[in-house]
């Protein structure tokens, strides 16, 4: 439906546009007086949100427990790096992502036995389960309320160049490269026959099942992929901040990423990045205006309600539909 079905003719234009955007994004932020670090933070949330979009936007599964995987990936990656168990940053990220994906496969295999509100509440229960595991029984591993400080930042040698992620712009480039890779893969996924089945499940699970698709398996793979995206983003969060916060596991985090995805536009892949940008910049922007500094979240909540009620496609979805109409009129 949105962003073209299998075999649409956009070719590589979307990937090219996203790459171009990632290159100019720090300069754009500079125009508004915002720093590069803010951009890095937005990209990390955008990456996390790609996973949410895969299960919610494309498959129609509303999960209130995605923070479980964001936190799991984050704390596994942070531990591996802090304790020098894995010397390579990319290796630690890969393992963190894998562990989050395994956690996702486990939670998914249970939660996906239910649909609708029961699925939403089960994912919420598992999210809380992970939060309280992190908070108490696993505190030796997670630092409990204090989180884990001292996550090292990498420096990469790329032939004659070095990418120094200890600088703001170096970190941005590192995260942007991974975001682009994540976006690229997600777009391959949703444009594949596999992605077409996911959309079929969203539109009508009974019919998808009736034409012979193993609906539970497709859902489980989508859920596992979403957990992997969450885990990767969580790992990047710890590296970017040099500190892994326990709030990554919180129910607020699960709620925020859903709000960002819906504001940006579910079913677009780029939507969560737009939503994360709006969320982060609005918070930053409104906090500088004294009269309304305290109500940035109130404004976002109202925007969210209006979008859910009248504009289910969100900002990016609306823009894409508008663009398509312009082209059709021409």
């Amino acid at each position: 439906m949105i962003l073209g079905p299998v075999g649409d003719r956009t070719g590589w234009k979307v990937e090219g546009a996203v790459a171009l955007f990632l290159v100019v994004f720090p300069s754009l932020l500079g125009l508004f007086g915002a720093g590069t670090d803010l951009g890095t933070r937005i990209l990390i949330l955008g990456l996390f949100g790609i996973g949410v979009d895969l299960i919610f936007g494309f498959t129609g599964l509303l999960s209130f427990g995605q923070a479980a995987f964001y936190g799991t990936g984050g704390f596994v990656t942070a531990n591996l790096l802090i304790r020098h168990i894995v010397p390579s940053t990319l290796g630690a990220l890969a393992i963190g992502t894998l562990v989050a994906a395994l956690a996702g496969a486990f939670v998914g295999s249970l939660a996906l036995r239910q649909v609708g509100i029961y699925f939403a509440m089960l994912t919420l229960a598992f999210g809380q389960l992970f939060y309280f595991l992190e908070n108490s029984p696993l505190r030796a591993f997670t630092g409990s309320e204090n989180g884990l400080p001292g996550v090292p930042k990498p420096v990469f040698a790329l032939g004659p160049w070095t990418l120094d992620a200890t600088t703001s712009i170096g970190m941005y480039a590192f995260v942007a490269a991974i975001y682009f890779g994540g976006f690229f893969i997600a777009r391959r996924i949703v444009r594949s026959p596999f992605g077409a089945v996911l959309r079929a499940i969203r539109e009508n699970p009974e019919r998808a099942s009736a034409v012979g698709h193993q609906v539970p398996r497709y859902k489980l793979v989508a859920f596992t992929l979403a957990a992997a995206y969450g885990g990767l983003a969580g790992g990047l969060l710890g590296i970017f901040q040099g500190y892994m916060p326990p709030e990554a596991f919180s129910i607020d985090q699960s709620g925020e990423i859903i709000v960002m995805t819906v504001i940006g536009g579910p079913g677009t892949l780029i939507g969560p990045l737009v939503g994360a940008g709006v969320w982060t910049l609005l918070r930053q922007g409104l906090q500088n205006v004294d009269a309304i500094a305290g109500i940035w979240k109130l404004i976002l909540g109202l925007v969210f309600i209006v979008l859910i009620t009248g504009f289910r496609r969100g900002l990016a979805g609306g823009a894409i539909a508008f663009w398509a109409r312009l082209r059709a009129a021409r």
Partner: protein
Amino acid sequence: MIEAQLLNGVALGSILALVALGLTIIFGLLGFVNFAHGGLFAVGAYAGWLAYTRYDSYLLGILAALGVTFAVGIVIERLLIRLYYRRPKEDQILVTFGLGIVLVEIVRALFTGQNKLVPTPPWASGAVQLADLVYPQYRLDVVGIVAVTLVVVWAIIFKTRLGLIVRAGIDDALIVEMLGIDIGRAFMLVFALGACVAGLAGFVDAPILALTPDVGTAVLVQSLVVIVIGGVGSFGGAIVGGIVAGEIISLTSVFAPDWAQVALYIAMALVLLVRPQGLLGVVGRA
């Protein structure tokens, strides 16, 4: 020791039952998971706190909590919830989740994010000796308030014309409307009833909790645990679920304090997997 913890579990469970009751009313009668429940709880707590501390009357506090959340419930239902009865469950969850954020942020804008200390009313400030256990009087009084609230709400739903209309409307809204009854108005009143019970819980719990605007988040999650364990939309389920949840927390705390909350969510997940309608729930609702 175990007896004391069992009693503690019952007291904690009654509070949880009261907290979940508003959610269960709306869920049971309208089939609507109200994720704004925590926000309504906070609105009631603050409205009650304002009246209570200004006029030094606990009763006025209760009336303010009930009145304000009832009015807020009416407004929300007319403006928004009404549009969502026929939309997918996911949309209902999302819109009420958004509403919860808005309510909490309005409370924060009006009252700042600082802790509010809500004093225990003077008639309930002491402690009671129960066997070898000293127990705060107010917590025992809350058990009484919960009991009264349950009876009143039960009477409204099962013994009044409004309850009759709503229960008939759930079975077949079309037939009820053909009888010339305004089912929309009945739904509105039920939503407002659920909202004001949530608000009442907020005020009654306020002296026990530290009152901050985001008290609602924890409350929403706890309430979901209670109604899931007890039975979605089941009246007795809220009580059973509350007490089971209270006992799980209370008893696990004795043996493995680190695992108390974990055990609660394991129980919730198990119930959802094995008996999704909950211990007392009926299959086919919601």
